[in-house]
């Protein structure tokens, strides 16, 4: 299945993926309207120390520890995509405790968590981060062939 | 209005050819009937013929056919004959017999000369007989205004003029000639009244070309071939094709098949799939002579002493039909033109794109300049 893979050697640290992600998760409309004047809550995060940078998003593990540890049964895997049921999530953060990549993040309201779901709900299955990465440092592909 | 030589005039056409493998001489009547069927492919602005074996009595001499535009250039004949006398031994000279018919008007003065180069002149030039003769003919055409050599081979002749080809044929009384090989041309130029010299066939020495089409590679070919002492004074396709064939075949020594592989080169994809050694040879030829590839529609009948070659373009953009019946070979733009003279023809077919069809006399004693090597 296609997943998001990040390629550190091409990451420019522009952080645009975070904005495109945040916007996609707000419905993918006009970014200026959606994000103007407020902090963004992307599901992909760029780690950046000024020299090295790369984005981190959910890897959709074959053995997802987040799902196995979820006390609410709110995390499921559908067609390989690890998804969070916001309604069931009680915000205990066991998944944050479990995820080795730090890819599960508190949601804006703090009562639930969020993570990359490959834009299946938002951008029609074409992840906004990969689509808009100016340097193909984030790719959406089978098996990370180019990563 | 500019005429050929001052402007490039594309034209559509009809062509026909008849050939006797046994060398049997035929009157010009058949070829006239053949080309006449394709009347609508001409528009009355040019027609012409080439006949081979027609001057058996003067077979050893170059037969120069000349147009003199006496009205515009009254001195032309005098200048030209002076030139000829300086360079050739003239064994016979005189007007070419014609028949006054209402369809043909404004004819120039039409003469023919049977000549051989003066040995001392040829020796000084350090050229062989053919090259010397060819260069002299080209020089007349380029330098003597009002004089135009339109035929210059041995034991053959071109007959052409303004008019429908069947009228031109009657005008020249071709039924009175006997030849083993005839080609004919009916012309449909697009933007000029044309002039007599611009009609076809075009000839150089015993090579004549009748051509139907309009090649798109013209200026690429012309600018290249002119590097080798050719001058495309008429700016016609036929002229440049004739020179290309002359250059490749006579001067570079390529066989007719090899020549065809240059001008109608197969596509690279075809070449790559060819079996060896053809593959290597043809790829080499295409690389080596890429400037002589001819593109755009054409079908030609090349006449030469002892044979004919029919060749079409690499995409088969112009129709061409050939046929065999007994010792006769026929070629024409349309099958009807063949059936008009040979209703029960045994075999008729359309050659493949770029495929040369070469016929020669069964007896090879008369090898001309264009004969297969």
């Amino acid at each position, binding site marked *: 299945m296609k997943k998001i*893979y*990040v*390629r*550190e050697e091409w990451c420019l640290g522009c952080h645009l993926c975070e904005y495109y992600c945040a916007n996609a998760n707000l419905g993918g409309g006009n970014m200026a309207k959606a994000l103007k004047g407020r902090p963004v809550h992307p599901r992909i995060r760029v*780690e*950046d*120390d000024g020299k*090295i940078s*790369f984005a*981190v998003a959910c*890897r*959709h*593990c*074959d*053995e997802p*520890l987040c799902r*196995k*540890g979820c*006390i*609410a*049964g709110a995390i499921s895997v559908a067609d390989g995509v690890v998804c969070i049921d916001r*309604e*069931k999530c*009680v*915000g*205990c*953060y*066991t*998944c*944050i*405790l*479990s*995820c*080795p*990549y*730090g890819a*599960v*993040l*508190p949601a804006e309201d*703090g*009562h639930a968590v969020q993570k990359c779901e490959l834009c299946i709900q938002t951008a029609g299955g074409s992840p906004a981060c990969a689509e808009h990465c100016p340097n193909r440092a984030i790719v959406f592909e089978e098996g*990370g062939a180019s*990563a | 209005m500019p005429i050929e030589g001052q402007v490039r005039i594309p034209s559509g056409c009809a062509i026909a050819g008849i050939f006797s493998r046994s060398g049997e001489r035929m009157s010009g009547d058949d070829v006239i009937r053949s080309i006449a069927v394709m009347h609508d492919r001409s528009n009355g602005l040019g027609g012409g013929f080439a006949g081979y074996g027609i001057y058996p009595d003067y077979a050893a001499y170059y037969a120069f056919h000349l147009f003199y535009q006496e009205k515009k250039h009254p001195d032309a004949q005098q200048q030209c004959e002076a030139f000829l006398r300086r360079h050739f031994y003239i064994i016979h000279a005189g007007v070419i017999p014609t028949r006054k018919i209402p369809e043909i008007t404004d004819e120039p003065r039409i003469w023919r000369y049977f000549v051989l180069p003066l040995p001392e002149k040829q020796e000084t030039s350090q050229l062989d007989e053919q090259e010397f003769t060819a260069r002299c003919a080209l020089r007349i055409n380029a330098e003597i205004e009002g004089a135009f050599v339109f035929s210059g081979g041995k034991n053959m002749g071109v007959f052409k003029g303004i008019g429908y080809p069947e009228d031109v044929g009657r005008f020249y009384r071709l039924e009175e000639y006997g030849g083993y090989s005839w080609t004919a041309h009916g012309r449909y130029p697009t933007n000029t009244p044309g002039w007599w010299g611009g009609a076809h066939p075009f000839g150089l020495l015993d090579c004549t070309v009748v051509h139907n089409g309009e090649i798109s590679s013209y200026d690429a070919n012309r600018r290249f071939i002119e590097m080798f002492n050719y001058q495309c004074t008429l700016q016609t396709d036929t002229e440049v094709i004739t020179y290309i064939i002359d250059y490749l075949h006579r001067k570079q020594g390529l066989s007719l098949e090899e020549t065809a592989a240059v001008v109608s080169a197969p596509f690279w994809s075809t070449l790559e799939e060819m079996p060896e050694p053809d593959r290597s040879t043809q790829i080499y030829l295409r690389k080596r002579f890429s400037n002589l590839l001819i593109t755009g529609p054409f079908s030609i009948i090349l006449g030469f002493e002892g044979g004919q070659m029919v060749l079409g373009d690499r995409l088969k953009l112009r129709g061409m039909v050939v046929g065999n019946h007994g010792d006769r070979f026929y070629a024409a733009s349309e099958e009807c033109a063949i059936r008009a003279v040979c209703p029960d023809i045994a075999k008729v077919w359309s050659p493949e794109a770029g495929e040369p069809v070469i016929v020669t006399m069964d007896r090879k004693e008369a090898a001309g300049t264009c004969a297969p090597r």
Partner: protein
Amino acid sequence: MKHVIIGNSAAAIGCVEGIRRASRTDDIVLVAAEPHHTYSRPLISYLMAGKTDRTKIRYRPENFYRANGVQAKLGRRALGIDPAGKIVTLDGGETIAYDNVLVATGSDPLIFPAEGLDQVENVRTFTTLDDAEALLRSVTAETRVFVVGAGLIGLKCAEGLRAITEHITVCDLAPRVLSSILEDAPAAILRRHLEENGIVLKLGTSVSSFARAGAACTATLRTGETVPFDQLVYAAGVRPNTALVKDAGGDVNRGILVDTLCRTSLPDVYAAGDCTESPDACSGERKVMALLPNAYLQGETAGITMAGATAPTLPLLPMNAIGFFGLHLLCAGVYDGERTEHTDGQNYRSFYTRDNTLRGYILLGRVERAGIYTALIRGRTPLDALDFAALRDQPGLIAFAGPVRAEILRNQDNQRKREAAAP
């Protein structure tokens, strides 16, 4: 193959899913004393607080049993296992033959005897859905609740009830909250936070006696203080339900002894979850690690093994993620070795390192991406191979050496394999 699973919580569900990963056809019979569809026990406090409901509390979708081909015998109690005859006996005398059986019976709350306890009418524990619903029925805005135990259950219960009533007092013998998982400093921060949110804490003391006067009760603490209350909740510890294995002759300590594949000492008898005692990957000691993620992992491992496949064995860690009134606490591992800590009064983080490995950590407040630390503990990653100083301040993959990071970013399976391969 026929598998019998006794229990219906995380370990049991993990076992079902484990079996189904290996086999779509094996028979599965699930026996559970509770009559409910599988639900998440830790969620009962959220139910109290209204953050979940009877439907959402389900641990798996409604069609779970059907979709997984599970014959569920809910509300039935397993009374005994005959390992020689390979038979499970249920209440009412029904017997089920098995090829493998999983004991996932969990634990039951303890109620320590105290003077006057027998006079108190409203005594509840807080581990089951029925417990929570009973409390929901009985507690109103005016109800004064007294919770015995300031551990995970007691405090979550207090937080949950706080959504209903303002009158909550929690008492614990330990001098700090969450004494089993927190050290003094973070506990102090948490305590202050709880108190700011209206929980009255009586720590370092215990109930000496209960007394009843009409509907109202009073607890007298050892300090001499008295705590009037209407509802008593006992949350002072649990005891693993080991009887089935013990009675069948299996090795049992505090919990049922199992190996890394969740095998008990009895042939074809497996155990997983809160009822077991298994090696802690950090200390190597056998422990009851009564934590839902571990229960699931054990159950899954057991299931895969029972179905005859090879299970990836993930080292089990003590670890907790818990939050009270918006303050999150994440901790894992053991607190031994060298400690570095940092606090700004509100947020707290401490790390415990020994022998070039991270042994444990406690994060309070700012907890994002803590799983990166957990993975270090689980994988026993050598700390000198990464920039741990930077990692402590800011969890991130950037702290790993380039090639390692590239590997992590490229393929999560490799990461998993690396963890699994760690000694």
